[in-house]
């Protein structure tokens, strides 16, 4: 029974949005350019986000968490605000959720007892998810990493790319094909057959360390399989919606920065915003950011209500993927030559913005 529709934030949602926005404003906006150039963000900013307790809230009290449950809608708000600051920061800060949420929702009691308590500590706990593969037109439903059952173990073989913090992650969830479907497997640090490569270099996400991870007859106990054959479908809806939320955040950042610039920058004696060619790009950015956000909210609403959100999450992601590309391109174009220089953040939005359409599952709601 779905009673009402609402486009307005609740007080709780508003408060969370404000909190994260302020955190980003105070800790990320001024620092991010240097983090990006240095290829590493300041972990203190991540720690500050950790201290908001968003990850810990997802964990039931019996495992040491705050037991607040998790709200997919609320998480899209959080992700948009984080990504408004920087995508690398957003992925980094929310990374433990990629491990925690699946365990909370799909895990056996045994798995919960084993893994959840350590995420209730005072310091950020690195854990990650290995999904993407460096193959042409990578299709997550037909990934090439395979799992094979041998006795009471699973043996993993394959190679993943774009695995954030793989070097320090205590645990990672690995997506591998098994019996015709992608499944989730938990692999702990130092498992034999798991090797983490050199840090990757990518078009964007410079402040985020990502790695190629290889599984060579990597053998894990039977009990490390997380959930059943429906688990991946559970996961992908949430990660696709999360990617859409990140796209919304990046696009909004590009929109707001170039809007401000267009009003201030004078050319031929008038602000460039007074030219329709610039003004109409800004108008389009304004409504496309909103459209992206509404599609994201709709997918998150469906997930929150426990409904199947295959369609909604897919549409939100592909829409955000196309539009983030378009809007971050507009941002650079509006700034012209200045937009091409790394001094202005539209350059970073452009590089990061290209990844929404290209990648799967860098975050979760």
């Amino acid at each position: 029974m779905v009673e009402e529709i609402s486009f307005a934030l609740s007080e709780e949602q508003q408060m969370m949005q404000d909190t994260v926005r302020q955190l980003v404003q105070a800790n990320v906006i001024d620092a991010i350019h240097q983090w990006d150039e240095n290829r590493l963000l300041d972990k203190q900013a991540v720690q500050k986000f950790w201290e908001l307790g968003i990850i810990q809230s997802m964990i039931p009290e019996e495992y040491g968490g705050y037991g607040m449950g998790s709200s997919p809608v609320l998480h899209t708000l959080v992700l948009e605000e984080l990504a408004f600051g920087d995508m690398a920061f957003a992925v980094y800060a929310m990374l433990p959720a990629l491990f925690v949420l699946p365990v909370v929702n799909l895990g056996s009691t045994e798995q919960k007892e084993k893994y959840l308590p350590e995420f209730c500590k005072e310091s950020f706990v690195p854990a990650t998810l290995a999904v993407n593969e460096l193959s042409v037109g990578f299709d997550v439903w037909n990934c090439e990493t395979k799992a094979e059952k041998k006795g009471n173990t699973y043996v993993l073989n394959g190679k993943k790319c774009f695995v954030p913090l793989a070097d320090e992650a205590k645990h990672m969830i690995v997506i591998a094909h098994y019996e015709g479907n992608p499944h989730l497997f938990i692999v702990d640090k130092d498992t034999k057959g798991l090797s983490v490569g050199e840090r990757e270099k990518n078009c964007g996400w410079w402040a985020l360390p990502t790695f190629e991870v290889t599984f060579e007859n990597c053998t894990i106990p039977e009990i490390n399989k997380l959930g059943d054959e429906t688990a991946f479908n559970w996961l992908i809806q949430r990660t696709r919606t999360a990617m859409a939320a990140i796209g919304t955040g990046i696009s909004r950042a590009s929109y707001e920065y170039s809007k401000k610039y267009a009003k201030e920058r004078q050319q031929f004696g008038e602000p460039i915003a007074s030219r329709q060619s610039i003004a109409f790009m800004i108008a389009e950015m304004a409504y496309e950011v909103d459209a992206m956000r509404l599609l994201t909210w709709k997918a998150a609403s469906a997930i929150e209500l426990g409904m199947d959100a295959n369609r909604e999450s897919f549409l939100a992601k592909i829409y955000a993927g196309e539009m983030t590309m378009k809007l971050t391109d507009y941002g650079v174009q509006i700034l012209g030559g200045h937009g091409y220089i790394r001094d202005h953040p539209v350059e970073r939005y452009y590089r990061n913005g290209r990844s929404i359409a290209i990648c799967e599952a860098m975050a979760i709601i």
Partner: protein
Amino acid sequence: MIQLVTPDYIKTLQDNMHKLAEGVLRPISRKYDEAEHEYPKELDMFRGIKVMARPKKKKEGESSTSGEEKKPKRGANLGMVVTIEEMCWGDAALLLSFPNAGLGNAAILAVANDEQLERFGNKWAAMAITEPGAGSDSGAITTTATRDGDYWILNGEKIFVTCADRSEVVVVWATVDKKAGKAGIKSFVVEKGTPGFTLEHLEHKLGIRASDTGTFVLSDCRIPYNNILGDPEVKMSTEGFKGVMKTFDNTRPLVASMATGIARAAVEFTREQYEKKGYAFDYKKNLSNVSAVEREWYLMDANVEAMRLLTWRAAWMADNNQFNNLEASMAKAKAGRYATLITQRCSELLGPVGYSTQYLAEKWMRDSKIMDIFEGTGQIQHLIIARNVLEMSSKELK
């Protein structure tokens, strides 16, 4: 609290309206496209139904916080855009031909006094704004209304009047004082048959052919003084004009939902046709690893959803007494443009089936195009949005 899953009561409304559209409009869609301008008599069944009504005034002593009003707000605007989307899934030109549901009716309901409501409330009312010399430039109206005792004398020419032939009265925009600019523009109810009020001709159009768009000439047309809608006084501000323009904040989401309805019709038809050929659409894969039709189709489906959500938001805001000028233009700008892009892409994917009049796809490609033009072109909507978000005046951003 954000909640965008379609509520059950809206689903029920959608289902009911969809049945109506499917059962009544679709079967006669092609017929009246071909019989350009002919009144679709099948629509007489809707004549009795009050499509538009003024909210009842509260009786004296009636509590303003009765039990009913405590329920969450289920506003008329959202219901309206939902209904219109379904109807235009059926046929947009037929929706524009619904008896007594003209734009003029909306204007009369909004601002008529009781005496005027008595006289015109039950009549089919068209709206006459545009002139040959002024398209999007409503402030440049040259039709004049001159007072002559108990009468107004109107002179001018009006084009693009929807329901020109079928309507019984026409709400005509005219200036009572050219020097006053926008402040001098007022609207007047002119009854058919008034001497000096002539329907010159009906337009042959690219699409929405069932709708009778026409041109009126007013030549010393004399109407009662009391036929002026709203305050006759010319105030030295443009508040009055802005008030008139505000009606468009409400009509823009309606046009956006019309656009959404047509686009959805095309998208659904394309899917059905390709499913018959064995294609499956399952919302899962990577966009690169599918057929060309699937890729295009998913992107169109996402865009239809975006059009709908922007439209619903604008309507929901109106229902919740929020100022939605910006959001109304956003919905119209997006939906108007993409309806054309989507319907033409569908026809392209369909091939000859998208060009022959044996199917409706080519009609949707024609009908949808008006959505980016009337009630303010896409260019005008982008201007409104840009001025709003950039906080620039119409002088700073032309």
